């Protein structure tokens, strides 16, 4: 990745902070409106922590980030992000320059962790509805021989589609599920976060390519 993990975390941090109010509004509609705050706090903390003491082992770095994320943002999504970082980190243990295959495996482990921890699946109107199709597309595109930035860019379209589809779904889990049918017509906030994350890295790749 251009600039390594540190630059990548920095890119995510900036994008999430920019999307803060948007995420708050999405979560406020059928939740408690904290998502923008907790995610800004979490992604800022892990980026800053890495900046202060970088770690060559990407796996280890992600595990540490997961623990930190949970400490500073122990909300639902904070805990799911922590779980994702821990699982992804475990999958990358010992790697300093993960291959594309490693990355796909780590992403699969991460979203597997979210589903397991959250006892949720695609269709429940969550972040999974963005991340699952995005990772599937990424994997297929890479298998088709695309390079990582290209594949990531194509997967962004899948992520966007996934996000749009959450508006048609009934919330099955978490706070939003209490709204039942009333949740239809509103996008899921966590899905919004998934999109922000995916787009952040896509932009980061793009910037890397241009520079």
């Amino acid at each position, binding site marked *: 990745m251009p600039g390594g993990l540190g630059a990548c975390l920095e890119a995510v941090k900036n994008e999430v902070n920019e999307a803060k109010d948007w995420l708050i509004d999405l979560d406020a509609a059928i939740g408690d409106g904290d998502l923008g705050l907790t995610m800004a706090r979490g992604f800022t903390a892990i980026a800053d922590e890495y900046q202060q003491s970088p770690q060559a082992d990407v796996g280890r770095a992600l595990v540490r980030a997961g623990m930190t994320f949970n400490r500073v943002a122990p909300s*639902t999504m904070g805990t799911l992000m*922590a779980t994702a970082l821990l699982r992804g980190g475990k999958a990358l243990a010992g790697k300093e320059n993960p291959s594309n295959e490693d990355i796909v495996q780590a992403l699969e482990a991460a979203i597997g962790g979210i589903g397991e921890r959250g006892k949720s699946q695609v269709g429940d109107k969550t972040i999974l509805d963005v991340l699952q199709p995005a990772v599937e597309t990424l994997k297929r595109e890479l298998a088709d021989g695309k390079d990582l930035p290209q594949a990531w860019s194509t997967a962004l379209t899948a992520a966007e589609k996934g996000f749009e589809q959450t508006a048609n779904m009934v919330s099955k889990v978490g706070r939003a599920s209490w709204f039942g049918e009333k949740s239809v017509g509103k996008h899921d906030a966590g899905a919004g976060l998934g999109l922000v994350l995916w787009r952040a890295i896509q932009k980061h790749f793009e910037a890397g390519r241009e520079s």
Partner: protein
Amino acid sequence: MKKLINQPEAFVDEMLEGLLLAHGCSLRSVRSDNRALIRADSPRAGKVGIVTGGGSGHLPVFLGYVGEGLADGVAVGGVFQSPGAEQILSATQGVNGGAGVLYLFGNYQGDVLNFEMAGELAEMEDIPTRTVLVSDDVASAPPEEWQKRRGVAGLFFAYKIAGAKAESMASLEEVEAVAKKVVANTRSMGVALTPCTVPEVGRPSFSIGDDEMEIGMGIHGEPGISRTKLRPADEVAAEITQRIVSDLPFKGGDEVAVLVNGLGSTCLEELYIMFRRVAKELEDRDISIYRTYVGEYATSLEMAGCSVTLLKLDGELKELLDAPAHSPFFEQIGR
């Protein structure tokens, strides 16, 4: 809502500092982290530890129920935010007397996820844990899905009874079993008249007309089951009681404990006006009141409103409910 606070971000930590200054004889923090608090005499060898936790803003829930005959430890989250797994683990370690630890808390996903993470970490340290979720809020899911409901003031009965059981040096399985029994026999419903304001957010958690109320609203402002014009206390009490009674259902001849709980700014006088009608409704249905609690047991900052909780009792539950209990926020000398 106007508040006597300093920096909103410091709200929880300053509250905890003040609390430990006031109650340092009863409570202490684990490894100087005030967000993981345990009974000063923890751990007690051979006693099952009870750890609870959840967001701040609900005093005396949660940390007010750490004491003799109640819970042993608590992890404290931000306002209306789950505590982190790390703090739950700290409390778990702090209260572990070798007989295992019961996680007893309200059914909110953020809390569930963090207690789950903590339980996995505790397991790695060979501390066996069990989890019992309190899910007493009738308004939050249909009867057949009662285990999906949110936990509200019924938490109090769970602490009181599981705490008394643990104090009797029962095993982890026994404490878990009686906690499950309480939860299965507890039903609550609330009514909200005004929202509250989370200090860091700075604006009310929801909006409601000056002449409106909402029955069934959750303690963080989760949507309820009916928003109407403000109605007389008697009508509200009658409706809430009817909804609770028909849910379990409670039946003629049953003996119950009643809790009429204030959410924050509703005054004690009003709670007794509500209780007056709840008692009448129960009498009309030949349900007898064994024990009554009226006051602020589980709040939502300065929200106005109240909740009613009924617990169906049997011999075992009565004995445990009557046992003495003692914390800086709750004292009971016995029957």
